[in-house]
């Protein structure tokens, strides 16, 4: 066996140029796949946490039917017991109860439909970054101050200024219409059209009063320290609650469209890589086949001096494996370097593309991420697809007849 391994290694360098080109192809495929995966996954992670930190939170507590039918009636009591449970889980960074409603905001001659968010500015600060998105004026300071912060496009469409007082009209818990006056103290610019065009943030208690649902909340947004704990914490929370009253939902359940959008993009990225790997695998197939055919004569001699056919197949297999392993190793090392660099110094988009990414609510920055699991998976994919490609030449060696081999020229 030791001799076989040595023989395989030396055979590899008999046609140095061909071996180098084949290895380069494997390096290229590995390197490119890992970089693309790294950037893709890094960008997803970044955009997910960006979107989650913006407002939705990583996990939300909701009435079980709220998602299907987000009405005031699908609300719940946020009990001190729940509060305690959230506070005691150290994976949870913070949580914020909210009331969601819909209304009409009027200023002067203009009235516009809006989405109303009742928040507690202090608790909200531990969960989301909405307070950082204030582009004019300031955030509301308490949950009961008759102040509102509106989306910047909404402010413009209303033709109102910061400091103006607007009327918000909404249908209450009891079905009756109510309206109240609030002072606009600031505007937010989130990049998400839904927020910028239609959001009104007001005190948690102010909104409860407007829609007459004192004591009840629509959702509790929860933020974690680590994205990867979402599943565990969600399960854990659900285990500790009466899920007919209130349920914990992960962001994937809250925003299935975002999740699927990412998945779709992810699959199309993986498909692209698969094509790339398959093309490279054909190259490997050809190299191995050539190196085998040009040695048929030599193999014939080896067979006729009594080398078992299996060992010959093994020899070619080891040769192929060497090339693949070297290529994959070098590719991994190169990609690791580049990915580490991109993790620290993300690619920043500029110009029109950047503007467009922002329109979609994404950051115009593409960081990479170094995930050992992704490196392993990608390497394994390249190794297995290439080995499958090498099966044909191996088969040819297996079925080679000694005399034919010698006669072959």
């Amino acid at each position, binding site marked *: 066996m030791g001799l076989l391994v040595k023989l395989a290694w030396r055979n590899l360098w008999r046609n140095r140029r061909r071996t180098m080109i084949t290895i380069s192809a494997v390096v290229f495929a590995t390197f490119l796949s890992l970089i693309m995966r790294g950037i893709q996954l890094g960008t997803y992670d970044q955009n997910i946490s960006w979107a989650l930190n913006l407002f939705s939170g990583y996990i939300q507590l909701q009435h079980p039917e709220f998602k299907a039918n987000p009405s005031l009636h699908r609300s719940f009591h946020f009990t001190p017991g729940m509060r305690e449970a959230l506070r005691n889980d150290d994976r949870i960074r913070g949580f914020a109860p909210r009331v969601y409603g819909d209304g009409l905001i009027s200023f002067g001659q203009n009235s516009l439909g809006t989405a109303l968010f009742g928040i507690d500015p202090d608790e909200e600060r531990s969960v989301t970054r909405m307070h950082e998105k204030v582009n004019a004026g300031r955030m509301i300071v308490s949950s009961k101050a008759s102040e509102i912060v509106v989306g910047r496009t909404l402010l413009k469409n209303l033709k109102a200024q910061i400091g103006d007082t607007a009327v918000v009209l909404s249908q209450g818990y009891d079905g009756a219409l109510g309206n109240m006056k609030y002072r606009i103290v600031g505007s937010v610019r989130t990049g998400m059209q839904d927020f910028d065009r239609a959001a009104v943030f007001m005190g948690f208690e102010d909104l409860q009063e407007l829609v007459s649902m004192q004591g009840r909340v629509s959702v509790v947004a929860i933020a974690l320290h680590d994205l990867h704990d979402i599943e565990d914490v969600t399960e854990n929370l659900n285990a500790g609650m009466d899920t007919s009253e209130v349920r914990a939902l992960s962001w994937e359940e809250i925003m*299935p469209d975002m999740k*699927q959008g990412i998945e*779709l993009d992810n699959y199309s990225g993986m498909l692209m890589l698969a094509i790339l790997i398959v093309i*490279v695998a054909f190259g490997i197939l050809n190299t191995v086949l050539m190196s085998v055919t040009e040695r048929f004569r030599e193999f014939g001699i080896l067979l006729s001096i009594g080398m078992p056919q299996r060992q010959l197949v093994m020899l070619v297999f080891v040769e192929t494996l060497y090339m693949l392993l070297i290529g994959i190793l070098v590719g991994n090392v190169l990609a690791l370097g580049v990915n580490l660099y991109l993790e620290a110094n993300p690619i920043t988009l500029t110009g029109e593309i950047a503007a467009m990414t922002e329109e979609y609510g994404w950051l115009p920055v593409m960081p990479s991420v170094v995930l050992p699991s992704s490196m392993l998976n990608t390497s394994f994919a390249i190794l297995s697809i290439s080995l499958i490609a090498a099966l044909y030449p191996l088969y040819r060696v297996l079925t080679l007849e000694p005399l034919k081999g010698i006669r072959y020229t």
Partner: protein
Amino acid sequence: MLLTIAWRNIWRNRRRSVIVLVSIVVGIAAVMFNDGLSIGMIRQMLENSIGSHVSHIQIHAQGFNDNRVIQNVVPKPAEVESALRNTAGVQHWSPRVLSFGLLSSALNSSGGVIVGVDPEREKDVTTIRRSIVEGNYLTGAAHEVVIGNRLADKLNVGIGDKVVGMASALSGDVGSDLFRVAGIFETVSSEFDKAYMFTSIDNARSMLELEDRILEYAVIVRDINRVEAVAAELRQKLGDDYEVLTYIDLLPILVSQVDMYKSMMYVVYLIIAIAMIFGIVNTMLMSVFERIQEIGVLMAIGMSVRRIFAMVLIEAGTLGIIGTATGLALGTGLLLLFSSIGIDFSIFSEGLTSFGVGAVIYPRLTLDTVLNVLIIIPLTTVLGAVYPAVRAMRLQPVTAIRYV
């Protein structure tokens, strides 16, 4: 004759050439399919937006698009209508009033766009009538409304149920009216189905105190490729009191996404091309080194090095052309097949409908794709043969002839 030699040389090692060809063919077919699918997806987004409400051209009072307030009414509707009637490129048009307001049922309320339309005219302009999944389209009777299915779900209403619409009226007061749900529509865009409600234009006008005023004309042109020309003609007829916007002006993000996608696709082509190059370099090198002696003889009988170089490039180019032709045929076949039957991506339906694509994607074959493949791939194979050809060129006739 160089071509004959190249052709026959390719088939000297049939198996090797076939493997290279298969890799080229698979690469091309896969890239084309991917390309067609992505283009199909983006175009569907664009076409669905156009079909559900944007239409090809919108005419408003100057400045309305940036400042969508109800006071910004079309100055002289009669003037616009006469221009529309007298413009040959215009196929259908429909007058509208619209306002962003609040819709409430007994249980819930939701912000949304209230659109007043002429039911007869609107059905030629947008796909709303065809998208009705429950109940009926507007008949023109008072207090009828059709709403998106997602909005109906949120308001928890069905056919015959009451909804109250509220929006700012011309005077600045909040105008409101009580409607009954006549129909529920479902398009491929969940965003649209969440937010839109259609009623008859007269009803909407009375609610918004608009009397006989109009806020928007939605226009469908006969030939979408001539949309800019039609818009220019209308602009010229109507003058500066009006804004005439094409879907390109109205959906800048979607339109530029097509451009962005195109530039992204070049990166994909580049990557695939590089992957192919490795295969070509190796194959051509093997083929050159197998024939060292033969090349030596060619040199000895007076073939210039430039011709030797050309011969190797032609061989690779021929492989490239055969591969491209086959790949193109396969890719085109696949795209044509799936462009009519579509591919069902129901597992991503939430994501796809939120982008306004729809769960079934119809890949498209575009001239761009074909041209890209036609230019890039043969060029790639020739490029991949440069190094082997240089090696062939550098051979010294004597050593080459002696080489065994």
